[in-house]
């Protein structure tokens, strides 16, 4: 196991942290919210991230990437999570890019992955439907055979960065009924294709998202990723990887909120003394620290398991997502409470961290979902 960072990884993390601190303070996300900016991120900064190679970290060298792993990706995403960086790494690389990498044939990979790696192509995954909750098999969207391919109809919601994605990876049912694990297929759909309607959503946690409506959208056979009807396995694999990325981001957000709170405890006076001298708060801070360290281990363990192709990778992904979900919400709640009234104001940044914490908790499965999945994997 490689649970601690080697020198290269430490350097990568350090650089990512500096970049984020200098280029993307938390105030950015506030500005984007206030301005109603429809893009919701900076294409210029996205380009500079590509220069640093971030979009290519997970992509093999033969497709123009750096061929590194989740340990490295987690370093970058943890730092991005600290400042709630809005650029679409999660969607473009971990969802869209991974769908091609894990499900695509050689032609698809050769064509698309280099563009993902250099940041020129934005992809995302459109798998959730209203009421589908955290399931990949709850698919009502239907793909029927059409001349030379398929015609897809249905509605996808909470598509991360769906408002800007050039290509949408869409799950649709080619056979079976809702909740049937077989019969789901995965297609790539161009945003410009006839019948695609995209409506931007405004989320509580300020994660750029969209509704994607497909009205008899025709795609060719070459739009299929992986075998027809075998999409659930592909979706689960893709989402597992995105989940580790999200967990790293959540760890970063939790660390930042914790450190902001620690700083507040050390500077805020009440009743004539620093509130950080109150033992009840000290113990709660120490308990948060314990959870943060366990969360860090969980993320490292899951990343390492993916990188080494370990048998227990899926179980460790659930461990990580369950842990950081509970961790992020705990820290978010405690951060607000310890900040007192000021923490309840929209003006203070700490509220963003609570919102993002729960938003991410409810993305790719909350802790109860992952405990149940873990138990199933473990055979009990």
């Amino acid at each position: 196991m490689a649970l601690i960072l080697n020198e290269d990884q430490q350097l990568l993390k350090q650089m990512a942290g500096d970049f984020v601190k200098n280029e993307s303070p938390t105030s950015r996300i506030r500005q984007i919210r206030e301005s109603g900016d429809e893009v919701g991120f900076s294409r210029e900064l996205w380009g500079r991230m590509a220069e640093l190679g971030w979009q290519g970290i997970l992509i093999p060298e033969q497709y123009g990437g750096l061929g590194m792993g989740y340990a490295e990706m987690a370093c970058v995403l943890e730092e991005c999570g600290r400042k709630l960086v809005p650029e679409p790494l999660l969607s473009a690389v971990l969802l869209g890019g991974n769908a091609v990498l894990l499900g695509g044939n050689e032609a698809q990979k050769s064509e698309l992955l280099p563009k993902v790696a250099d940041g020129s192509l934005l992809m995302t995954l459109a798998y959730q439907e209203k009421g589908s909750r955290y399931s990949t098999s709850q698919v009502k969207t239907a793909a029927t055979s059409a001349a030379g391919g398929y015609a897809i109809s249905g509605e996808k919601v909470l598509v991360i960065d769906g408002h800007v994605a050039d290509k949408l990876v869409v799950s649709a049912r080619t056979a079976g009924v809702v909740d049937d694990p077989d019969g789901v297929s995965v297609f790539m759909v161009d945003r410009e294709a006839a019948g695609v309607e995209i409506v931007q959503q405004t989320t509580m946690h300020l994660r750029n998202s969209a509704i994607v409506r497909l009205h008899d959208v025709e795609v060719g056979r070459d739009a299929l990723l992986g075998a027809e009807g075998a999409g659930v396995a592909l979706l689960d694999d893709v989402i597992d990887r995105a989940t580790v990325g999200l967990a790293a981001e959540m760890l970063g957000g939790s660390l930042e909120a914790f450190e902001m709170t620690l700083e507040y405890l050390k500077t805020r006076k009440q009743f004539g003394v620093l509130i950080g001298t109150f033992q009840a708060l000290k113990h709660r801070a120490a308990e948060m620290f314990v959870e943060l360290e366990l969360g860090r281990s969980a993320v490292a363990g899951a990343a390492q398991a993916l990188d080494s192709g370990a048998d227990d990778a899926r179980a460790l992904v659930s461990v990580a997502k369950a842990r950081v979900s509970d961790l992020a919400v705990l820290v978010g709640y405690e951060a607000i409470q310890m900040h007192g009234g000021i923490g309840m104001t929209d003006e203070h940044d700490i509220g963003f961290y609570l919102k993002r914490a729960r938003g991410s908790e409810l993305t790719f499965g909350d802790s109860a979902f992952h405990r149940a999945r873990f138990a199933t994997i473990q055979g009990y």
Partner: protein
Amino acid sequence: MSDLESFREQTRAWLEENCPQSMRWAPRKRGNPALADDLVWGGKKQTYPNADAKVWLERMAAKGWTAPTWPREYGGGGLDKAQAKILSQEMSAVRAKPPLIGFGLTMIGPLLVANGSEEQKLRFLPEICRGEIRWCQGYSEPGSGSDLASLQTRAVVDGDDYVLNGQKVWTSYADQSDWMFCLIRTDPDVPKHQGITFILLDMQSPGVSVQAIKLISGASPFCETFLDDVRVPRDQVVGAVNDGWTMAKALLGHERTMISDAFSESSERNQLVELARTYIGEDGDGKISDQVVRDKIAQLTMNKVCFDLTVGRTKEAAKIGQQPGPESSIFKYYATELNKDRHSMMVSVLGPQALGWEGEGFEQDELDVTRSWLRSRGNSIEGGTSEVQLNIIAKRVLGLPE
């Protein structure tokens, strides 16, 4: 027929005749906090939700029944306790909404009845009873937080006036209010609990400016109030100069009770169950299909039952004239923690449908769950933090050493 019985009959008849149908609770919606918007807070900025609301207030105020137990000379109803109880019961019987609510009736009014000068009573109480002025409370300041006595806003005597300078925060609906009752430091050279005076302030006075504070939930129930050389006549002091802390303690008690009361409605008890049926589903027997969710909802519901029973103990004791026992010290703490837990669970039950802020893809009910959840996080901060409540229990009830 006893006097009380005949009072009951007359009251019932009067209410039946005078309470407009639109000012009666729909049976199922009682206690739904969304409906609080229908209620009349009074004041010059009041816009009535409908014509009936105004009629209802005027009719009740004319009888003095907006403040049933206050003396008639100050605009109250002059009822004794037994009569007031009958009025309350009969209002419940016809499901009448209260004609008027707010800090005037529940906080500053009772204080003036008990501690105001005759002049103050005659000046303010009738206006309060008629809903003509709305009040806000100016206690907290930036930096004071839980340590209320550390306040810094200063008043210095200048002729017949005090001149006030400083800043108040967390003033609920200061932007909607006509008057503020506030705590002001009048003597900086004595220990902090002394040297504070309880002052009534006209929000129209020159030098008063108000700015709403936007919360993480998106709502703005609180304001910052800036006082810049604001002149207040010295006869607007309540109680003795430098004895404001005594006045404040009585009112703070009131506020804590109100906050916990706000969560003690039991009609919401099963909202979680309804949400779970919708968002999680049920099995063939009508049980929530996820047993873990069901277990947590049962826990929260039981918590609520236990809390209601505890409030019930205090109410029973009050009925037979006993002082509230030690159990009443837990009300603020537990009601707010429970409310937070309940809202937190509602978000979990909604799952991804709780991710909305506005716009397409989410029902209004879903958006309300999310925003109410965010708002609930402040419950354990406002009106005395949970930490302060635990400190109070440890010290006053358990007698643990400092």
